[in-house]
């Protein structure tokens, strides 16, 4: 590691950049990217390269990496820089010229760092991880690395089932990274100070850190060596490794006002705006939502801290847009006050505030109306399913009336387009449920005609992928053929309505996501095979290649059925059973049974605890300023669930409305 620390490689990279698309994504130079001080710790700091396995445009805005970048660089014994996946054109140039993966901060070679630390937010980026490790000049398989190679580690939502990547990752972090990165730094610093006594010694020491999972410290056995085998057992082989690896959770977001100086890139990226996290965790309890399950409990940032971070952030960055981020920002206790203060402080009227996820009720629209500057083009809601029955199954307890009120409110306040997000392929879904999506969209169009001549509704449909640590982890996902059939069914149903546009995700990509999401260690050779056959950037539709995955599965005697399509039994050992996201497995099973019985579960922020395990096992609890649920609509816990099944009054109205519109 330190032997190759040497000098930046900018001069080798620079001649390649005029030949590639968008070279600005490789230069760094962002505002807020403090230069790491490599003279720390006697010139041998613990050096982290924080990596995002996708392009700069997607990876730069990642708040998790920016938070860790600051925390690590503030330490006296660590440095952190950042790197992203070079697009295929630069990769070809780099391989041709022998230029390794580099950091964008000081353009050092990746192998000059002690740790290559990946953020894993999407399964389809797994092959990019292998590709980046390979571009770094590091063996892709952990077993082939020596004490001279960097550690390859990962964190992020996908690492709650890291088993498909067990061959490639030396260690994995579960949960919030704010505290554990410091503990890992100390372990690595200690190991270096003792003269690097072998790689296994380092991994054994890391296995003792709470929240750190070392895959090579566990042995997995299977019931047979056939394709339909399931896991028999997962056992630690080192005494240092715990039977059950616990996730890390920071108790109070107020103590972590990061990023303190969010980076402002010089070139275009997604979410190119100031982002302030207003709370972490969600207890709405949507059963399909892994993020909501694994990030519990809810920890709100104090409203005054949010306002301070917004005010200082806008001043420092020069951005004219701020997003208040969370899994459901309208549920933030201080939302009305915070938005009011931001709007009041914006004396020149040039700041726009965005809420990445809008609640489906009139309250949400009112908040949006307060902050939306400029042209009101589109507003997005996520009812997720087309019928009340289906929404009870997934515990997204939105009444149809509330959706219609929200949509009515949006059109009446000047928005011209409503975008609706849905999932298809949900447990117990019938064609009636699927077609319910078309009915909702049509009714929204009719409501829009009260206010506009040509209202527009965009229906966006994604194929449902069951995820680990959710009540649906036992569910066998719909096949590609079935998802395709449902999408066609829906497309035919809305085709006659010119106001409705429909978009959908590729069901073939949904399949691969499902295989990787709930797979086990037998997928290691499959991922490696797919990567070696060139299947990188798989989340980009122009690069996605199902045949590479089919060939890779077949070469290893495995099938999609085993990992994605079959329903799993209660007693089956799941690949992630030795990891703990806080939720009791019996709670999840009960919630799965409740789902099939179409029984909803209220939000525990404002109702009694049902002991999912996220708080009780860790001595932590919700940090929620408001003791009462938010105002308005079924998504507050004041909802009357019994009325949800009734035919909403508005549904009967559109015919009359349509007639009136036609007459005028």
């Amino acid at each position, binding site marked *: 590691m330190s032997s190759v620390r040497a000098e930046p490689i900018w001069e080798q990279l620079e001649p390649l950049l005029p030949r590639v698309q968008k070279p600005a994504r490789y230069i760094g130079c962002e505002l807020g990217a403090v230069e790491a001080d490599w003279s720390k710790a006697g010139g041998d700091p613990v050096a982290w390269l924080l990596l995002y396995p996708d392009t700069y445009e997607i990876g730069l805005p990642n708040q998790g990496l920016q938070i860790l970048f600051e925390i690590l660089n503030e330490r006296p014994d660590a440095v952190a820089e950042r790197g992203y996946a070079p697009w295929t054109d630069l990769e070809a140039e780099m391989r041709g010229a022998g230029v390794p993966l580099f950091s964008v901060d000081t353009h050092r070679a990746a192998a000059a760092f002690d740790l290559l630390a990946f953020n894993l937010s999407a399964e389809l980026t797994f092959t990019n991880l292998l590709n980046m490790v390979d571009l770094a000049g590091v063996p892709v398989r952990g077993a082939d690395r020596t004490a001279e190679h960097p550690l390859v580690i990962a964190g992020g939502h996908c690492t709650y089932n890291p088993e498909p990547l067990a061959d490639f990752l030396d260690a994995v972090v579960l949960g919030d990274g704010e505290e554990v990165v410091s503990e890992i730094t100390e372990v690595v610093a200690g190991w270096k100070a003792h003269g690097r006594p072998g790689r296994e010694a380092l991994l054994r020491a890391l296995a003792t850190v709470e929240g750190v999972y070392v895959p090579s410290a566990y042995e997995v056995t299977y019931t047979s060596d056939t394709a339909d085998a399931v896991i028999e057992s997962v056992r630690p082989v080192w005494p240092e490794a715990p039977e059950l690896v616990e996730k890390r959770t920071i108790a109070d977001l107020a103590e972590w006002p990061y990023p303190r100086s969010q980076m402002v890139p010089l070139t275009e990226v997604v979410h190119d705006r100031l982002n302030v996290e207003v709370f972490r965790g969600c207890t709405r309890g949507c059963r399909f939502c892994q993020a909501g399950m694994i990030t519990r409990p809810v920890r709100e940032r104090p409203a005054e801290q949010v306002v301070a971070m917004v005010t200082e952030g806008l*001043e420092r960055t020069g951005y004219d847009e701020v997003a208040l981020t969370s899994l459901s920002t309208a549920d933030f206790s201080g939302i009305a006050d915070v938005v009011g203060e931001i709007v009041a402080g914006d004396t020149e009227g040039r700041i726009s505030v965005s809420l990445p996820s809008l609640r489906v009720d009139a309250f949400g629209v009112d908040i949006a109306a307060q902050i939306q500057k400029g042209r009101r083009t589109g507003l997005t809601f996520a009812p997720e399913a087309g019928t009340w029955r289906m929404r009870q199954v997934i515990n997204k307890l939105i009444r149809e009336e509330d959706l219609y009120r929200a949509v009515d409110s949006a059109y009446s306040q000047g928005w011209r387009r409503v975008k609706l997000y849905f999932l298809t392929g949900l447990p117990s879904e019938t064609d009636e449920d699927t077609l319910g999506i078309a009915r909702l969209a049509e009714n929204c169009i009719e409501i829009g005609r009260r206010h506009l001549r040509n209202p527009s509704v965009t229906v966006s449909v994604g194929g449902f992928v069951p995820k680990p640590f959710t009540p649906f982890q036992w569910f066998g996902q719909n096949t590609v053929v079935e998802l395709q059939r449902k999408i066609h069914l829906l497309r035919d149903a809305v085709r006659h309505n010119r106001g409705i546009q429909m978009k959908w995700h590729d069901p073939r990509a949904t399949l691969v996501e499902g295989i990787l999401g709930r797979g086990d260690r037998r997928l290691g050779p499959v991922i490696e095979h797919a990567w070696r056959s060139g299947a990188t950037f798989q989340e980009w539709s122009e690069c996605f290649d199902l045949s590479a995955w089919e060939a890779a599965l077949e070469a290893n005697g495995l099938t999609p059925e085993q990992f994605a399509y079959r329903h799993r039994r209660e007693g089956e050992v799941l690949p992630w059973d030795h990891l703990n996201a806080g939720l009791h497995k019996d709670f999840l099973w009960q919630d799965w049974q409740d789902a099939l019985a179409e029984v909803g579960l209220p939000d525990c922020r404002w109702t009694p605890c049902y002991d999912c395990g996220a708080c009780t096992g860790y001595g932590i609890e919700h940090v929620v300023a408001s003791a009462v649920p938010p105002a308005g609509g079924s998504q507050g816990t004041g909802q009357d669930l019994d009325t949800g099944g009734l035919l909403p009054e508005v549904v009967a109205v559109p015919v009359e409305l349509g007639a009136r519109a036609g007459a005028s």
Partner: protein
Amino acid sequence: MTRIRLRYSKHGKVRFLSHRDMAKVVERAIRRAKVPVAYSEGFSPRPKLHFGLALSTGYESGAEYLDLDLDPDRVGVREPEAIAEALQPCMPAGVVITASAALEPGEPSLQDVVTSTAWQVDLATDIAGDPADLAGRADNLLAAATHEIEIVRKGKQVREDLRPLLLALSVEPTGGVEPITERARLTFELGTKPRSVRPAELLAALGVSEPVCMLRTHQWIQRDGRRFEPLGLPDASPHAEARAS
């Protein structure tokens, strides 16, 4: 309405920023520096900034210009030097503001007035071929009455005569060391009316097709028999303009 003209240079890593990227960087810098720039009307008001001829991504420059309109009703720094001073720390490394001035009312836009741009590029022999030969090719091009090139404009393949827009061209040894063996410095000036010739098109005409780092050294305005820059560098002597022309 006061219009301020700034001159800046762009060197190093930031040369890979596109014209569009640069515009956004400047917008944010203006907000951070609290320069009281005027905004357009309408649904999405934008700061009133006017850039000159776009600099290709990957090229460096010692002569970029930017005009900005101040809002008479907003408070903040208004003096050209003070604006330059406030903006400089808000610019990325490699962008240096080198001059600033208030424009006379009615001064036409940069896009309209600039008539030619001057360039300099150092070529290694492995991409330029034998430099002596390069000098010969340059002489031939200058001696020719016309030189048609095939280019793509708006998605269409067209033939255009490059020669009328080639105003000057010379090949010298880099650093003045004779003979030209390893690196050659090419300097040239290209007209912008009725349309600009791209520096890469000239290089291609000389048989150099590899992308290289080009330096824009000047933008010139030819008007009423005089030749001058949109905004000269402050420490340039008053005779510099005359010498350059």
